[in-house]
């Protein structure tokens, strides 16, 4: 018997010899035998050497109709019935596993490899890194905690790890039993000369189940030109298709026709109620402290709920577990400093990042007394501590504190507002296939307005007004990885809310505590449970289906007004006041939220995707201004406000070109909104005890097409996007009950983002944005009453402000680090609004200043000039 050869690597030597024909007849000893026995017999009766892997199904039995026949006959039969291919090379017959089918056919017990993927230099967990088993052609990506789990048949595998911006790694590991494989990856920043992962090696988005999502790379954002050099996450995502804003300087962002309160903004899983500083010019996220940003516009997985239109999932850095580090920057608006480092090396670490604006310091230079006496600043503090108890347990503590403070000049005024969030998370592995995360969250948003004034008769008047919302949240999330083609998520969550719609204290020196106003706090509980299953069917189809059940109870203690005819309106007086005790349910709502996504691969580079989701929103922002303001309050669903519901369907075509260097996607969506709150004409929303009498309920629809072409690799990177969309509202009592465009309806929206690596030191970026002007309500006529020219506005949002477009440029200079020195620095020089476009901020309709009988439209542009900026950044 000739020796059987195990193949690991095949080496061909091309010695020409006349081979024996495969037509040579052989006779088997019996008609039924195992593959291994068959191969041994063929081996004996021919001059061929058989080479095969021990991972072939050698013990499988095969039966033949005849015992005698050519070698080719027997080989063809086993190749037909089993995942085996054969090849003749000179005197050798190679038996190979047939691709892809092998792991399915082999009914072997599986083992699990699992672990965390981290950055080698900092110990930061990498979110969405690809872990790929080359032999089996299966792979997965790490979850938001950097964890992955893959089940494979035992064997020796080459495991490839890749992540954009990091060097690829191939590890050859024998996996005979379930094991933990934690991997550290080297970032491209560490060794610039090394080959880094190119897009082609990462599992492309086209193969993922998700659609209508965008991962925003914080490094890309940091290179983009920004207003006054202030790197801004929210402004950057407004350049993505389907994301827009009411106007420059307006807070928040609008996703696919949703208002700003329909975005679930999560910072380390804690909801952030207000994402803006300085009304809306800057956002609350300090870019240095942020690790990962992901935006879901549609196909939202069942684990998210509570808002209609989007989820912006922002993750803070954990802090370097290897060594201490400093990072910071000095800009025109603010300065930043981040400190991070290990508490115990590789076991625990911390991160503290602070940012404070100092624009107000410049105000001192002004000659205007109102200006130089004033205080305007904001600050952010991001903190995080994490502790790895062992391989199965990790604990994270994170917090955010941000505030805007405003005051001084006007009547000793102080006005401040901000968010606070705190999160405690415990990641626990029940076993290598069941991952869990337990979270406790506190988050609040509040504002305070106070002033002390010398009254008309030299009496001191003090005034203090407070309002806010508080959120306490407990949740448990589980991920189960039964097989590489199947992932199951499930979990529960509970939120307890306190809403303070406003309390006012007024003190005057002669009459203390004159008419204080203290609106009843509202309390509510929101609970949810969800299940989500992502499964691959064959090579082409991946399906994700899920269901979320949510319930909401508005609870006491609170006094509830009852109105004539059960219908609160200014005409119907309050007929009764009902008192509810603590915890007593005032109103209860619940609902099922189905979620479904499908990916059908047309080829490795092309896919069709479709999704449907239904979302419930139980708390809404009460705001009737065009852009929301910091004093707007959140109101829960109650006996007079129903929860809002949206149904969204989306279809997409995804195509990658040139080894995944280019990505193209086209998506269409349709959304139907129910029970959105709106307001009666002339509604008074602030400090109103009978707020419900001012509310109307409406429906909405939004639909659109989003095109995105993205280049991910090379010296040039960036994207070009175009959105064609409409968003409309219908409310009985507004615009003659007809559909009208919502405040953020912008049919055409084009964005171009480019980044060019000029050299190792120099890098240039450009942004261009064009969008249709926002709707505004124009006077349809005018009339004169008592000599006053009065405009008549009959058509809500019946006209548009002029179109908006703007080009920004920036250059980044990063000198190479001096050998042996850790200190590195970089400069960013930017120009905002390069061609000094006078973009509309607001359009007013008013009588001319020269002649009040002439009425005209006047556009106010706040950034009518080129705005240069310079920022200095450093890391140590």
């Amino acid at each position, binding site marked *: 018997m000739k020796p059987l050869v195990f193949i690991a690597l095949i080496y061909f030597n091309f010695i020409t010899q006349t081979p024996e024909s495969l037509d040579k007849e052989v006779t088997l000893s019996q008609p039924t035998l195992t593959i291994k026995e068959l191969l041994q017999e063929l081996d004996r009766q021919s001059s061929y050497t058989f080479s095969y892997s021990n991972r072939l199904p050698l013990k499988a039995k095969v039966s033949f109709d005849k015992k005698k026949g050519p070698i080719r006959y027997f080989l063809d039969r086993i190749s037909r019935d089993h995942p085996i291919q054969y090849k003749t090379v000179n005197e050798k017959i190679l038996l190979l596993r047939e691709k892809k089918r092998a792991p399915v056919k082999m009914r072997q017990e599986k083992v699990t490899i699992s672990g965390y993927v981290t950055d080698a230099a900092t110990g930061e967990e990498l979110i969405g890194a690809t872990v790929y088993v080359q032999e089996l052609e299966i792979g997965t990506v790490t979850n938001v905690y950097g964890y992955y789990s893959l089940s494979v048949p035992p064997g020796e595998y080459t495991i490839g790890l890749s992540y954009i911006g990091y060097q690829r790694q191939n590890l050859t590991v024998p996996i005979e039993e379930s094991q933990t494989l934690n991997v550290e990856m080297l970032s491209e920043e560490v060794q610039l000369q090394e080959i880094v992962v190119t897009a082609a090696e990462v599992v492309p988005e086209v193969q993922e189940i998700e659609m209508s999502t965008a991962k925003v790379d914080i490094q890309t954002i940091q290179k983009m030109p920004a207003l006054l050099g202030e790197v801004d996450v929210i402004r950057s995502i407004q350049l993505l298709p389907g994301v827009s804003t009411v106007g420059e300087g307006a807070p928040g962002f609008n996703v696919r026709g949703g208002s700003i309160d329909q975005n679930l903004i999560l910072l380390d899983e804690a909801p952030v109620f207000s994402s803006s500083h300085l009304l809306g010019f800057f956002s609350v996220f300090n870019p240095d402290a942020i690790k990962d940003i992901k935006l879901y516009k549609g196909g939202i997985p069942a684990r998210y709920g509570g808002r209609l239109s989007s989820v912006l999932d922002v993750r803070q850095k954990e802090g370097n577990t290897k060594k201490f580090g400093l990072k910071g920057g000095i800009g025109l608006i603010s300065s930043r400093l981040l400190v991070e480092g290990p508490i115990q090396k590789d076991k625990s670490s911390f991160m503290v990042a602070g940012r404070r604006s100092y624009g107000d310091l410049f105000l001192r230079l002004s000659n205007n007394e109102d200006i130089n006496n004033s205080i305007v600043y904001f600050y952010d503090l991001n903190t995080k501590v994490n502790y790895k108890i062992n391989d199965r347990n990790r604990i994270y503590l994170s917090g955010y504190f941000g505030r805007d403070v405003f005051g001084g000049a006007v009547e000793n005024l102080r*006005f401040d507002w901000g968010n606070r969030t705190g999160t405690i998370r415990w990641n626990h592995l029940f076993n290598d296939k069941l991952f869990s995360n337990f979270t406790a969250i506190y988050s609040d948003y509040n504002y305070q307005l106070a002033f002390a004034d010398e009254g008309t008769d030299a009496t001191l008047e003090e005034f203090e007004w407070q309002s806010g919302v508080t959120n306490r949240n407990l949740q448990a999330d589980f991920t189960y990885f039964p097989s590489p083609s199947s992932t199951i998520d499930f979990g529960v969550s509970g939120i307890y809310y306190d809403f303070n719609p406003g309390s006012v204290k007024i003190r005057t020196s002669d009459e203390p505590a004159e008419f204080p106003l203290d609106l009843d706090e509202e309390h509510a509980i929101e609970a949810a449970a969800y299940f989500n299953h992502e499964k691959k069917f064959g090579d082409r189809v991946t399906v994700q289906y899920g269901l979320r059940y949510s319930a909401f109870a508005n609870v006491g203690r609170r006094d509830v007004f009852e109105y004539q005819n059960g219908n609160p309106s200014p005409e119907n007086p309050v007929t009764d006041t009902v008192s509810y005790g603590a915890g007593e349910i005032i109103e209860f709502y619940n609902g099922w939220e189905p979620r479904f996504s499908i990916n059908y691969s047309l080829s490795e580079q092309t896919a069709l995707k479709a999704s449907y989701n239904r979302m419930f929103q139980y708390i809404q922002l009460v705001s009737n201004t065009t852009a929301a303001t910091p004093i707007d309050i959140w109101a829960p669903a109650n006996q007079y406000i129903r929860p809002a519901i949206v149904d969204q369907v989306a279809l997409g075509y995804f195509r990658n070109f040139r080894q995944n260097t280019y990505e193209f996607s086209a998506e269409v969506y349709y959304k139907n909104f129910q029970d959105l709150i709106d307001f009666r004409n002339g509604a008074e929303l602030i400090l109103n005890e009978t707020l419900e009498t001012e509310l109307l309920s409406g429906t909405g629809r939004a639909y659109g097409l989003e095109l995105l072409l993205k280049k991910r690799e090379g010296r040039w990177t960036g994207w070009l996007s175009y959105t064609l969309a409409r968003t409309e509202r219908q409310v009985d009592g507004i615009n003659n009950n007809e559909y009208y465009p919502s405040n953020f309806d912008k049919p055409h929206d084009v964005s171009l983002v480019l980044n060019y690596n000029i050299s190792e030191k120099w890098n240039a970026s450009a942004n261009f944005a064009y969008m249709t002007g926002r709707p505004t309500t124009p006077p349809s*006529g005018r*009339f004169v009453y008592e000599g006053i020219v009065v405009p008549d506005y009959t058509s809500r949002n019946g006209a548009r402000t002029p179109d908006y477009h703007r080009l920004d440029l920036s250059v980044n200079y990063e000198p190479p680090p001096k050998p042996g020195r850790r200190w590195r620095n970089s400069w960013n020089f930017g120009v905002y609004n390069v061609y000094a476009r006078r973009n509309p901020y607001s359009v007013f309709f008013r009588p001319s200043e020269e002649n009040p009988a002439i009425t005209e439209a006047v556009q106010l542009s706040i950034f009518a000039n080129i705005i240069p900026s310079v920022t200095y950044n450093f890391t140590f």
Partner: protein
Amino acid sequence: MKKLVIKLYSFLGLLTLILFSACEDVIIVDAPEGAARLVVEGWVYDNQDVQTILLTNSSPYFDNQTPPLETNAQVSVTTQNGEVFAYSETSPGEYQADFRGSVGERYTLTIETSDGQRYQSTPQLLSLVAPLDSVYTVFRESPEVEDEGFYPAWDFTDPEGSDNFYRWKFYINDTLQSLAEDILVFSDEFIDGDEIVGAEFFLEQPMEEGDKLTVEQLSINEEAQDFLTQIQQLINNVGGLFDTPPDPIRGNITNTTDEENYALGFFGASSVAGESVVVGE
């Protein structure tokens, strides 16, 4: 409070103006033109013997034409007892009738235009107005006010128990201060039955020594208060990012021939108490 917040925003606006050299441009906006509507302006007062109704029409906002007059209309006011006062056109668009309003009476305006459209107001009760206890002026310095000078002040006593709505009109040297900012309306919701001493109003233009000030205190109703307030809002608060979208204005005149073709403007009835003073005397 709202005022304070608005102040805040205007302050921020000022900041951006200075920091970023903001600018304003007159632009052309493509706005849909509404239908021309009849505009009614008229009151029945208890202190004059001739009552006047002015009829004009609304016009496109950017046309900048003087309001087209509505001539040859049939105008009359009916009391709750069925008494009819017919108005006659004394000059184009201006209709007058000789009668004095009486307290406790309800008046309804009826108009038939030459194209056959019939309009009717809601009935308006002429209610008694509280007397003015005293009218005087106070001197205000900057920075308390923008323009240093004399401003009107007055005392009055609100009758207890009834819902009263007030309007004050200010005449300087017998000229009505008629800017939108000079409209002052007030409800007694929080001062029912109180004696108010030192009510003050900062007119757009302060007075100087020797000016004659006349303050008229009028009894209006909630409808009139809402209408006048809305006029002020429409003029002060439009189009900004942090403004509420403006709403259509409706007065109290309906069209009985064609409901959609409603009229703009307001017809009211009011009792008037007036008093004059010369600044510095």
